[in-house]
């Protein structure tokens, strides 16, 4: 029983013609609505981030100055001139609203974030772009690999529900599913890097090798990337296994499966073509939603391995209080996750014709 009065109040009023157009072009309406939500959420998240950065007591220049003072690297008079110059440079003399507009303009239009304190005076966006490929490589490969492996295992475990092994595997996966990647990384580093010395404990590649597309370099990259990737994969696989298993089990009761078995199709064919194909819609949606938490977890992993990606850069700029770089990374991660989710939602109707708008 719904409260019709509340419903009537909450739906936006559109003209009759507009409503008819939307009814006729359901797909277009969906795209418009989803894009609208995307822009709104993106704007909202970036504004919240802006407010956060402005909530910080003091301002970035004085805080940096204070930390310099602590290490006695400070001459008061000269410092004041430099401080004033930097305040101009960082735009801290403008009103809050001007700073907000400048912030949005920086992020969306000019992509110029100002000088980074980490590598002064290199602009922050250059510093970030240097780190970006490493994170995309590490996270990209780990998530894709764990998604595939987890989904396959999930189908197997969901399909053979009666087996004790499947139950045990599921319980183990459930128990491990929310252990931070960092703790797994610690154990992996301890065993494989220090006790057994099978893998190197740090960096993305051996510093002695030149950065070029040579086999030597690529092998080094793979060797250095294995442990970080493994720490992410081991837990992500558990998550995908659970999600897929749940989906498979809810699909198992469907009639078309009985029909498929009656037709005499092999179990594998039924599992892949009938069960999995009907499941993967929520799986892909879940993938997008999980991207944020995967990034959260990877920050600590990158820090542990000193892997030169966004996560490590984030921690470095935090410890140095490098304002511009911090803002840039936060904004980039927000933008990346929201865009990925919007892209997935827009692709869904193409991938699965059953999607109702």
């Amino acid at each position, binding site marked *: 029983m719904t409260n019709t009065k*509340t419903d009537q109040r*909450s739906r936006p009023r559109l003209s009759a013609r507009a409503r008819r157009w939307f009814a006729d072009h359901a797909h277009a309406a969906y795209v418009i609505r989803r894009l609208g939500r995307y822009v709104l959420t993106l704007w909202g998240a970036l504004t*919240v981030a802006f407010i956060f950065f402005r909530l910080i007591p003091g301002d970035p220049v004085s805080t940096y100055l204070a930390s310099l003072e602590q290490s006695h690297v400070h001459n008061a008079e000269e410092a004041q001139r430099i401080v004033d110059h930097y305040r101009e440079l960082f735009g801290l003399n403008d009103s809050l609203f001007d700073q907000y507009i400048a912030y949005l303009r920086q992020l969306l239009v000019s992509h110029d974030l100002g000088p980074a304190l980490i590598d002064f005076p290199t602009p922050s966006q250059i510093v970030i772009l240097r780190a970006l490929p490493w994170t995309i490589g590490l996270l990209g490969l780990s998530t894709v690999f764990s998604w595939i492996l987890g989904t396959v295992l999930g189908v197997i475990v969901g399909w053979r529900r009666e087996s004790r092994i499947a139950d045990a595997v599921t319980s183990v996966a459930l128990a491990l599913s929310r*252990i931070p990647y960092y703790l797994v990384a610690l154990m992996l580093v301890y065993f494989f890097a*220090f006790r057994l010395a099978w893998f190197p404990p740090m960096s993305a590649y051996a510093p002695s090798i030149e950065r070029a597309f040579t086999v030597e370099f690529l092998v080094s990259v793979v060797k250095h990337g294995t442990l970080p990737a493994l720490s992410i994969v081991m837990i992500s696989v558990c998550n995908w296994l659970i999600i897929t298993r749940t989906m498979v089990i809810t699909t198992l*009761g469907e009639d078309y499966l009985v029909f498929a078995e009656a037709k005499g199709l092999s179990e594998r064919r039924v599992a892949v073509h009938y069960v999995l194909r009907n499941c993967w819609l929520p799986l892909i949606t879940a993938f997008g939603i999980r991207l944020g938490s995967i990034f959260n977890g990877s920050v600590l992993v990158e820090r542990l391995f000193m892997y030169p990606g966004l996560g490590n850069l984030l921690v470095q700029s935090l410890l140095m209080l490098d304002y511009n770089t911090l803002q840039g990374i936060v904004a980039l*991660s927000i933008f990346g996750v929201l865009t990925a989710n919007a892209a997935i939602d827009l692709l869904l109707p193409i991938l699965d014709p059953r999607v109702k708008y």
Partner: protein
Amino acid sequence: MRFLRAAYKLWTSSAKFRVGLSIMGILVVLGAGQSILVPIIGDGEDPLEIAAYKQWLPPSSDHLLGTDRYGRDVLAMTLVALVASLKVGAVAGVLSTIVGVIVAFVAGYKGGLLDAILATITEMFLVVPSFPLLLTLSAYVRAVNLAHVALMLTVFSWPFAARTIRAQVLSLRSRPYVDLARVSNLSDLEIIFQELLPNVLPYIGLGFANAALGAIFALMGLEVIGLGPSETLSLGIMLNWAIGWGALSLGAWPMLVAPAVPLVLLFTGMTLINISLEETYNPRLREVARIEAPRGNGDGELH
């Protein structure tokens, strides 16, 4: 009373709950008992005093986990650190749940535009990686004690609780007995407290469990980087020290293993409790966990 009966029923029916609660129970007992255990370990002296013992002693019968760089007993450190982590997790969890309950009830019960706004905000916090924001906040507001840290963690963990609770409030709002209560002229607040709250209670518990889990992860993350509460000994700080002191290359594995194992147990235990709560109270998951879906067996029969 109902709560105890529900807990007992959960204990007897779900193995996951038994295991999870046992793990948490052991950790809580160890942590709570630290005021007794630490003096026992110290044998009269304070085992946490700097240079109480020789530094970097390997595990032995005197020091079950050896000593650290400043000559403190590692086992004693672990116990004290465990309490800090449990405390912050609990406090942040409770605060997050309170905020989450308020948001969820306002959004779920009132509905309409308010619900749309609050739901969008909740989802935004959940989808967008909020950990960098939390790190930034802590970097600039160097938290000194546990209370400040718990407060900051709450700002980031409340959506976990709110999402769980709001879903249930929404589903309950359209039930007949709520309409009946409205017709019988009960005020909104009375309806919320007398009709909705008792049925949402398990979900509030689940929301607390989720929020606490998120809070402890964020806490660990803060401490490991070095942005955690500076006056308290905690598991994450021990990890930070272990890495900073090069414990791995020195072969001083206790410094690394001693904080890592309780953390892993903490996460595992809480996850198991969460899952058993979800399986019992979320009707869709209940079907997945227990009932076997009907399948044909080849000769045309359905089981």
